[in-house]
């Protein structure tokens, strides 16, 4: 996987590749004495969807969380290596972790709306950031809800509790909340795993739509979902990156036997 270091950072129009918005180089993460991921080198390309797949415990979520310093909040977590966001190391001493998390937003497996109104859920990040202009807040809330393909469903009831929404709507509300603070990268940790097929399809459709404006990395256990929504796929196994490539290639002719075994259900 070392040859990933040679991946061009500049767009190669002929190959349809985009710039690496984020670039992880030799990243290892351990929790206390347990090493969760080892020596991961992987680009997250701009305005593309990168899927991280692999069996439970392979380190894909750990890697995802290291992309916006969420592991900082875990006791005993230690990150080594380098993760660049637009060429700047997000773990450098002078970098504010809160600002990193604003630029690199996250959507979790279980939707976690606050026990507030739909409007206030989306406005929350802006208020925390000190925004007081009510007109501006209302405008951003609408933009974010539209961006999350939820506006038409909730515009008549913005003051109702977010808890009154369905599971799929709650998840899209969480995406709207993430969008409100104008992130550049969105990390999604199994965003549709608890949803029914229709709600899942809406989330997947939304991911494809968001792709034109945001860089997205998604952890999913669903092979089909990874195949449907992503442009690139990275296969993790036992804390290591086994293979990274274009999704079409990974799902039709992976180069590594371990990838082939995993995606075709021959593991174990």
């Amino acid at each position: 996987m070392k040859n990933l270091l040679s991946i061009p950072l500049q767009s190669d129009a002929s190959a349809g590749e985009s710039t690496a918005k984020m670039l992880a180089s030799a990243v290892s993460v351990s929790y206390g004495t347990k090493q969760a991921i080892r020596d991961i080198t992987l680009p997250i390309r701009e305005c593309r969807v990168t899927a991280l797949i692999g069996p439970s415990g392979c380190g894909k979520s750990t890697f995802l969380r290291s992309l916006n310093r969420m592991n900082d909040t875990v006791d005993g977590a230690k990150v080594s290596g380098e993760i660049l966001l637009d060429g700047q190391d997000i773990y450098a001493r002078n970098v504010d972790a809160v600002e990193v998390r604003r630029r690199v937003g996250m959507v979790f497996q279980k939707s976690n709306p606050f026990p507030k109104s739909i409007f206030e859920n989306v406005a929350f990040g802006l208020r925390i950031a000190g925004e007081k202009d009510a007109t501006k807040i209302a405008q951003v809330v609408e933009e974010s809800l539209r961006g999350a393909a939820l506006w038409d469903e909730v515009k008549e009831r913005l003051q109702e509790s977010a808890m009154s929404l369905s599971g799929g709507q709650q998840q899209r509300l969480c995406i709207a909340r993430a969008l409100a603070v104008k992130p550049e990268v969105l990390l999604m940790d199994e965003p549709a795993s608890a949803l029914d097929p229709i709600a899942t399809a809406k989330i997947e459709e939304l991911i494809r739509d968001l792709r034109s404006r945001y860089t997205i990395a998604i952890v999913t256990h669903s092979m089909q979902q990874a195949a449907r929504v992503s442009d690139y796929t990275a296969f993790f196994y036992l804390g290591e990156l086994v293979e990274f490539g274009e999704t079409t290639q990974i799902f039709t002719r992976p180069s590594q036997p371990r990838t082939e075994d995993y995606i075709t259900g021959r593991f174990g």
Partner: protein
Amino acid sequence: MMNTHTSQQYYTELRSLKDRLLAMGGRCEAHIRQALQALEHQDAMLANEVTGTDHQINADELAIDDLAVRILALRQPVGKDLRFLLTALKVVTDLERIGDEAVNIAERAEELSSEPHLPETWRALPEMANAAAAMLHDALDAFVEEDAEKAQSVLEKDDEVDEFYGQVMRKSLEYMAQHSARVKAAMGVVSCAKYIERIADHSTNIAEMVVYMVRGEDVRHRGKK
């Protein structure tokens, strides 16, 4: 190829698809052999047997298509399973057409059975038939053994069959020019040569799909084809 599948049911379905394809391939080989024997020995009864049993090959095609669609819908295969499924769907069509070509040969053999003995002029025909039959046999072997190199070697043999075809055509034209009363019989032989040449082409298609199945590499329409 498939014996490490976590889902035994899925494994069984893939295995069953492969077995059915192999059975169909075996039937095609047998039909070709019989049709060629019927042609060589001008044996109308044997020719009739071939035409009478083509429905089995058609039934094979329908059953294989059904199973492949079921696996695609229920299992959504990826990686080598996907390549195998795509190969199966393509190979089944080639096999069914090979079955049709065997019937065509058998029909001509039946017509030719009432003709006087076919002259030596067409001695290249059995050789050509053997070469085409060997191509099918090797293509199916390559499929069973998942052997891309063997499949590749089948592709190289297509030229040989094409050369035989040219020889048969030239000899037939010469023969027809000299024996105008036997043009009908000569045309029957020419048709058979064409059917055999098509069998070689279908075998080539199968071999190309085997290369794809094993390596994920599409080798179709390369070179002069």
